[in-house]
């Protein structure tokens, strides 16, 4: 796609959203059999799946921590998830995304409950459309809850960006390609920021305004995460009652 002349017209973005509107979200909890917890998460054109295994034994042994669990996070893009086929396997970008995503979730996990063990989070991006790391964190947060890992709270993630000199929530691919700034954040429901990255150009004021906007996005997503988990567990309880 060639850079469009305008990305926002009359306050409306090319995909019809208002500046502070996030893309449609679809959540399915517990989609995998082998994993201890899992979540399928669609965020606009992003399709990601997260699985959690653990607490379980750590291999190799020397990676164990004597007084807490080790949290590991593997973000991976399927070869077919992007326009031009991606070579399989980790690259520098996915290693960095894995690191900051893990750090976005570690603050809410009661790691000290599980010394010498591992909590493994795997996020596979089946289709990518700008915002895969936030989609992954949102999915992983639910998968952790689905796996029964004790957590202080959920974590929700959302990006804010600048497009045609306007701050907008949750960039899509074109806005990401042709926009002026991108800033993904992750947040606990009580407003603690667990992930913060920024690229592009923002004034000090835009940054502060953008941060508030992104926080609002996170709160909207948190609602949906809670609803999805609730739905799963109420259906489970229903199931039990029916038996």
């Amino acid at each position: 796609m060639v850079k469009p002349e305008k990305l926002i017209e009359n306050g409306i973005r090319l995909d019809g959203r208002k500046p502070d509107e996030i893309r449609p979200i679809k959540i399915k909890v517990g989609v995998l059999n082998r994993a201890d917890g899992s979540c399928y998460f669609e965020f606009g054109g992003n399709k990601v799946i997260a699985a959690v295994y653990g607490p379980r034994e750590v291999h190799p042994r020397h990676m164990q921590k004597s007084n807490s669990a080790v949290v590991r996070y593997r973000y991976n893009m399927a070869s077919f998830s992007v326009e031009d086929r991606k070579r399989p396997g980790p690259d520098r970008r996915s290693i960095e995304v894995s690191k900051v995503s893990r750090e976005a979730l570690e603050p809410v996990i009661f790691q000290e409950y599980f010394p010498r063990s591992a909590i493994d989070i795997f996020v596979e991006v089946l289709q990518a459309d700008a915002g895969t790391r936030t989609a992954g964190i949102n999915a992983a947060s639910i998968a952790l809850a689905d796996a029964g890992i004790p957590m202080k709270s959920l974590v929700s993630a959302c990006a804010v960006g600048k497009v045609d000199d306007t701050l907008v929530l949750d960039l899509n691919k074109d806005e990401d390609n042709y926009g002026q700034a991108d800033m993904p954040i992750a947040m606990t429901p009580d407003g603690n920021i667990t992930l913060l990255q920024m690229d592009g150009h923002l004034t000090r004021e835009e940054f502060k305004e953008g941060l508030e906007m992104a926080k609002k996005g996170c709160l909207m997503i948190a609602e949906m995460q809670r609803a999805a988990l609730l739905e799963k567990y109420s259906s489970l309880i229903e199931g039990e009652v029916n038996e």
Partner: protein
Amino acid sequence: MSNEIMSELRKDYIYNLMIKGEREDGRKFDEYREITIDTNVIEKAEGSARVKLGDTHLVVGVKIQTGTPFPDTPDQGVIITNLELIPLASPVFESGPPREDAIELARVVDRGIRESESIDLSKLCITPGEKVWMVFIDVHVLDDGGNIMDAASLGAIAALMTAKLPAQRFGVGEDTPVPMRDVPVAVTAVEIGGTIMLDPSLNEQSIAGTKLTVISNQDGGLSGMQKSGVLPLTTEQINYIVDISIEKAKELREKFLEI
């Protein structure tokens, strides 16, 4: 140790059922688990399919781009099949470069497509010796419930049958379907205590000493076979598996792959 006890118990359980003519999930010996195939599930891929075969769940994406042909086949396109057993799909899979199981699976799926000549490679040639279509078949296993082989094989052919050559995007004409001329289907059997079972579940697979995959075509002919595992098979067992595999492949093809 507990793993070994578990494995012993599981073995006994499956064995005892088998002696009574039963399987853990109530199937007949030649019966497949429930199969769902959805195609075009990944819009960014030129072709895609999600396959659920019992508890096994995988996505096959087909990416197609232009490239240079191999020097010894200047007028033929290229197929490359990749399969990874990513740690998301099973507690026993590990990160890192693909290991022998994943490589074997990918190569058997690849040969199933290639040796059956199901894709007309000569129609994937754009300019002989210079530019051909490269077809990448990537199998992404999400949940290992046993018999990944057949699920991957079904997914690969389903994804190919719905895939388009993205000629417009590469400026070489109009988009057209991938030129298919056969629909190979892989059927995998295991031998447990002398009994042959099709479509092994994870438990059945884990206690079976040997697997035989038979790939057959629309005309009922064979285009690929692979024995895998450390126990031998007799000629009678092999011939029996070949016979039922061809029948079962016909059934699966008609039910899931005829458009």
